[in-house]
């Protein structure tokens, strides 16, 4: 292919090349804000943190290379690392499926032809815009505190107050309810997916007398699996990095029961100034997320169905 192109280009090579070069320069100039941002704000810190992870850098003094000491320390001599890893895994297991289920449910509810449905779709997307903010976390704290609104509602149903955030057994569950509320972006994707499902299939199922639940599990869900996979991966990555909710609502407590990985990183870097150690922990988090993503991709062959067979043909 390249020979053919070269052959065609040869007669007027010089002016074309100049023109192309100019075009590329303009193109690069246009994307330079992103490029500079990527190099300075992403690539540089990325590489720097890898280097720091082998040092005892503490932000204020000079630092020394310590080899693998940071990595050895976290796996052999740091009980908070193990605790935080456990809490984070539990959090991911609770928050991600719950969020996807709600997103799908809402998407199905909004996938109807009705006057003003656009308005409702916008309304249901709103929480996602507010979702990760400090303000919503503070609101969550007030809703779920012992004297909060949730308990007053329960008490009007004669249910005795539940200590949502003060009980170490319940606090993580309460925190993992917060992202469920931010289902918007997953919902939009599900909605787009639902619109792609060929109506003939539903009609055929109807003619065959299939019940709605059966239709859902045998037509809708299988056809949505590529979108489920995408949402699952994105939300899992997000959930592993959660910070705000735990920081604002419980500050990792009670008894470290909501001490998410992000919070531990924050403590090590900005409370104890163990930047080297925190960098090493970030890289472990990166590897964990990478492994989870790879496993999801690998296993998806068995459960994600593509109409075209999955190889794009």
């Amino acid at each position, binding site marked *: 292919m390249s020979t053919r192109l070269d052959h065609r280009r040869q007669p007027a090579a010089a002016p074309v090349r100049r023109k192309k070069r100019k075009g590329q320069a303009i193109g690069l100039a246009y994307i330079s804000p992103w490029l500079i941002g990527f*190099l300075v704000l992403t690539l540089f810190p990325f590489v720097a943190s890898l280097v720091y992870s082998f040092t005892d850098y503490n*932000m204020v003094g000079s630092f020394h290379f310590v080899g693998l000491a940071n990595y050895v320390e976290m796996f052999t001599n740091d009980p908070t690392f193990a605790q935080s890893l456990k809490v984070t895994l539990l959090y991911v297991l609770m928050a991600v499926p719950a969020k996807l289920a709600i997103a799908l449910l809402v998407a199905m509810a909004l996938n109807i032809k009705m006057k003003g449905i656009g308005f409702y779709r916008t309304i249901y997307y709103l929480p996602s815009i507010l979702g990760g903010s400090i303000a919503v976390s503070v609101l969550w*704290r007030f809703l779920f505190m012992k004297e909060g609104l949730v308990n007053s509602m329960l008490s009007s149903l004669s249910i005795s107050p539940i200590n949502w*955030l003060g009980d170490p057994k319940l606090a993580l569950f309460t925190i993992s309810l917060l992202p469920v509320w931010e289902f918007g972006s997953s919902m939009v994707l599900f909605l787009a997916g639902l619109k792609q499902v060929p109506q003939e299939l539903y009609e055929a199922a109807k003619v065959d007398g299939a019940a709605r639940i059966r239709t859902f599990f045998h037509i809708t869900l299988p056809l949505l699996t590529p979108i489920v996979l995408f949402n699952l991966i994105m939300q899992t990555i997000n959930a592993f990095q959660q910070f705000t909710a735990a920081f604002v609502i419980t500050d990792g407590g*009670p008894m470290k029961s909501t001490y998410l990985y992000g919070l531990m990183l924050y403590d090590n870097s*900005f*409370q104890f100034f163990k930047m080297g150690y925190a960098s090493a922990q970030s890289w472990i988090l990166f590897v964990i997320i990478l492994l989870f993503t790879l496993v999801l991709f690998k296993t998806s062959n068995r459960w994600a169905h593509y109409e075209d067979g999955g190889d794009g043909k």
Partner: protein
Amino acid sequence: MKLKRFSKWAGLLCLALTVAVTAACSSDSGSSGAEEAKEEKATLRFSWWGSEVRHQALLEAIDLYMEKNPNVTIEPEYGGFDGYYQKLVTQFAGGTAPDLTPLSVDWIEEIAVKGNLVLDLNTLKDHLNLDAFDAEFLNDYATFDGKLIGLPMGANGIVTLYNREFFEKFGISENTKWDWNTIHEIGKKVHEQDPDAYLLGLFDYRIFLQPFVNQLTGNQWINDDKSLGFDAAAAEKAFAYYRQLLDDGVIQPVEESSLYPDLAENLQWQNGNIGMMFTLASTIAKVKSYTPDVGVSMFPVPADAKTSAVLVNPSNPLAINKDTKYPEEAAKFASWLLTDPEAARILKDVYSVPAATANAAMLAEEGLIDPTVAEAVEIALSNPGAPVNGLSNNNELNQISQDILERVAFRKLEPAQAAEELTSRLADKLQTIK
């Protein structure tokens, strides 16, 4: 071919960026020197955190100073306490820290001692009115490793603060001389009288564990030689006592209080269901905004205590950045702000009671200081414990103590186990601290 050309471009861009970043990152070598500084107009960046009242007072003082010293421009940078330390350390790391900033006591170890990022004010003696301060106070609370790391902006100390209404309701005398036994006895009675009432809120390592153990041992929590200042037996006593208070309803159940690290914000305190707290004089103004009618008395000290362990410290020594271009001007301003009577009248008690003794007396006389705050500082300074050393203020070590104390409160650890774990984990961690 396309790829080649692209990589050439990308390479050039990378190079340009690297040069730009290196240029931006390399800090000012400061070669401009002091001579030049004298001639040109000095600009000082002064950064602080605090409440609106404090901001207003400092801004007013800055204006007055600039009026009197037209060659000096002071740029104020102020905000809340949240994130201040993180920002400050990042600024120090990036070479953009302000010329003047107050330091919280628990940062001194990192910034002034280990980091060596601020000037030793003894080197600027000629520009400072050090005589205005009590020499012993400066030596005990603002001098570390022989270096005067800042000028104390105020005197601060821990006291027992109580809700007068609560004391009246339960017939507790305001003159009670508190020790750990009286707390248990009276607190138990209070809770028996009213199951919703508790004498105390949540304890943490700083207001309970460290002082309780120090009173038993007479040592620092962690000795300067990186050994523990206590043994497992002393820690076990503290944990057992704490558990007893929780079991007998002297302290609000931890399941309810753990959401409020700051007792002043605890709804039960605000509703008048909690009777007293141990707190620093500098926080009294905030507590009073929720509970106006409060009194203060001495922190609990048992008769046989080997040290009072009453925490006393300068509320935020004002430090000067080592890299400042104008050390002398910065020193002159800091000295004026904290010793000049006119400045004192503007600042009043925004940093607790002034550490400059003559100013403190003057403000008290003129009624410009909140009497509760003045009384609190006087009480704390009347029986101060030894100044807390850097290692006993180490955040990471204290986090370990706090975690274990919390697990005792949640009944996940028995006092003996807790004491064992505390001593072994602290000893482990101390080995890794340089």
